[in-house]
């Protein structure tokens, strides 16, 4: 049995169904991300785990204990809010002390644990400051220390990095992961940022419109998306409508307009499908080579890589090239696109596109 289990969790606000039949679990000590576009029900899910919202249906089980009816203050969870929600009238040390005071921890032990928590987030030198006079990154660390000092069974993070600027965000991703490992605390993080989820998690739960779309490791979610939505939401992807022919022993034939492409063996019945191909798996060849010919319509230089939009007869294809210091194909140039057929993902055709 997993440490945290959500069973068919559902939440309705009047006519709106924010979360629908959500089932997943979190292993002890792991870092799991709840990933999805804004408004897909991530925060609502987290609020139900935290005890601030009551599920309309379903159960939450933490370490074998059903949490229904357990008030938020008795769940013993550490929560970091998107806005940090620091107590503005208390110093850093007082903020961190609050949870320990509520637990009636003796003075001496309290002092020791506050020092440990601040040490963990590298803020020991600022314990007498007020939150108002701190930077976003520092406030974030205070919020983290405050949540961790009570030694929670579970740490909940709601978009913890979204209020930081891009550079600090990347630093904090590593930092947050280090702190989580050192504290050894099971963590459930909500985010709409796929790169954050990929970089930080042991496992990613992808949600869309209140429903679970996929639950797997970052590598598997990226490499083996099970739906068009997941393939497009994580990273960049060229998605094309196609018709799946009979699968042979060495793969399947995919009809895209007048072009026939070869893909890996598919478990799907012949008929309409969607194919997905990552831009970084496409190589550029001379105009006569490759599997598809096209014209470069747009070219963006991004420092470590080039992003090209190539117009082909089956539609526009994005191509990502690492910048190796050589000249890249120019706008208007005719190029050939090549890839390994095994890199094509065959997905069920989307019935109700978002």
């Amino acid at each position: 049995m997993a440490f945290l289990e959500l069973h068919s969790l559902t939440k309705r606000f009047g006519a709106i169904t924010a979360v629908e039949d959500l089932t997943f679990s979190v292993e002890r000590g792991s870092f799991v991300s709840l990933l999805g576009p804004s408004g897909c029900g991530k925060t609502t899910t987290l609020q139900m785990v935290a005890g601030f919202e009551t599920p309309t249906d379903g159960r939450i089980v933490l370490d074998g204990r059903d949490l229904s009816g357990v008030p938020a203050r008795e769940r013993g969870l550490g929560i970091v809010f998107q806005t940090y929600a620091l107590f503005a009238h208390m110093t850093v040390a007082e903020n961190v002390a609050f949870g320990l005071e509520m637990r009636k921890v003796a003075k001496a032990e309290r002092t020791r644990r506050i020092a440990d928590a601040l040490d963990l987030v590298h803020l020991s030198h600022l314990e007498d400051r007020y939150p108002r006079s701190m930077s976003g990154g520092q406030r974030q660390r205070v919020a983290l220390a405050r949540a961790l000092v009570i030694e929670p069974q579970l740490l909940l993070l709601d978009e913890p990095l979204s209020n930081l600027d891009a550079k600090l965000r990347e630093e904090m991703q590593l930092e947050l992961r280090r702190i989580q490992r050192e504290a050894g605390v099971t963590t459930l993080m909500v985010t709409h940022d796929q790169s954050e989820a990929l970089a930080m998690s042991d496992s990613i739960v992808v949600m869309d419109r209140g429903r679970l779309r996929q639950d797997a490791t970052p590598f598997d979610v990226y490499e083996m998306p099970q739906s068009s939505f997941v393939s497009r939401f994580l990273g960049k992807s060229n998605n094309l409508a196609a018709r799946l022919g009979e699968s042979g022993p060495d793969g399947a034939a995919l009809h895209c307009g007048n072009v026939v492409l070869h893909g890996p063996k598919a478990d799907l019945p012949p008929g309409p499908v969607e194919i997905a191909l990552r831009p970084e798996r496409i190589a550029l060849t001379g105009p006569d080579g490759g599997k598809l010919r096209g014209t470069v319509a747009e070219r963006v230089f991004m420092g470590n890589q080039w992003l090209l939009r190539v117009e082909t007869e089956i539609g526009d294809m994005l191509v990502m090239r690492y910048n190796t210091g050589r000249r890249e194909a120019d706008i208007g140039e005719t190029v050939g696109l090549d890839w390994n057929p095994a890199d094509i993902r065959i997905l069920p055709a989307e019935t109700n596109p978002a």
Partner: protein
Amino acid sequence: MSARATRAWLLSTPALILFAVLLLVPLLMTFLLSFNSFDFYGGIGSDLSLANYAEVLGDSYFYEIFGRTFLIALITTLICAAIGVPQAYILYRMSPLWRSITVLIVIGPLLISVVVRTLGWAILLGNKGVINTALIDIGLIERPIRMMYTSGGIVLALVHVMVPFMILAVWAALQRQDPAVESAAESLGARPATIFFRIVLPQAIPGVLSGSLIVFSLSASAFATPAILGGRRVKVVATTVYDEFLNTLNWPLGAAIAMLLLASVLVVMLSWNRLVERRFGEVFQ
């Protein structure tokens, strides 16, 4: 001066003129008047002296009036805070629809003239008023309780007039706080009462302090309510000034009292502000 600054000054000229004509000029004239002499037969003299101030400061009668005025203002402020803070918190926690309705009810009284409201209190509080009649009819008391012409009656009516200011000030402060703060405290194990006293209330303190400032200064200089409910018997500074001007016709003495009231209210306000800034400057803005 840059063109921008010049334009700013030009644009504010009409308001500045209005301000000067309607506030500064009368104030300055009252100030000058307070140094003139007065006698019953000769009227207002044109000489300048500190005699009026000396008269006020040397007479225990005036000390009593000033003391009573500030005590009334202080108690009114305390009661307003005691009522206003919980009510503002309730308002803050309401659903948007109920909140709009309640805000309307809260500021509704401000739309009615103070005189009308105070006369309403007079009807309730009088010896033959609604409250006393009812209590006698029920048989709880035999003789009416005196409520008209007492400081208590004035405080009661002033609280009614002033409490919206306190509620609005505290409510504004509560709205500035992050709503997730209460959830954070709850997740750390705090019970509702603890959350209110240790998290919500301290963050609302700046609102309570600014609300107190408004209520105190308005109460200390209130005229209509003490005039109607205090009458001749319970005088406050504002009614004393009125009497000097219109009954005794000793304008210079009235002006001196008015100036002393203004000065003492200013001193209270400024030191209050200093205290607040020193205590909370680091925590809040």
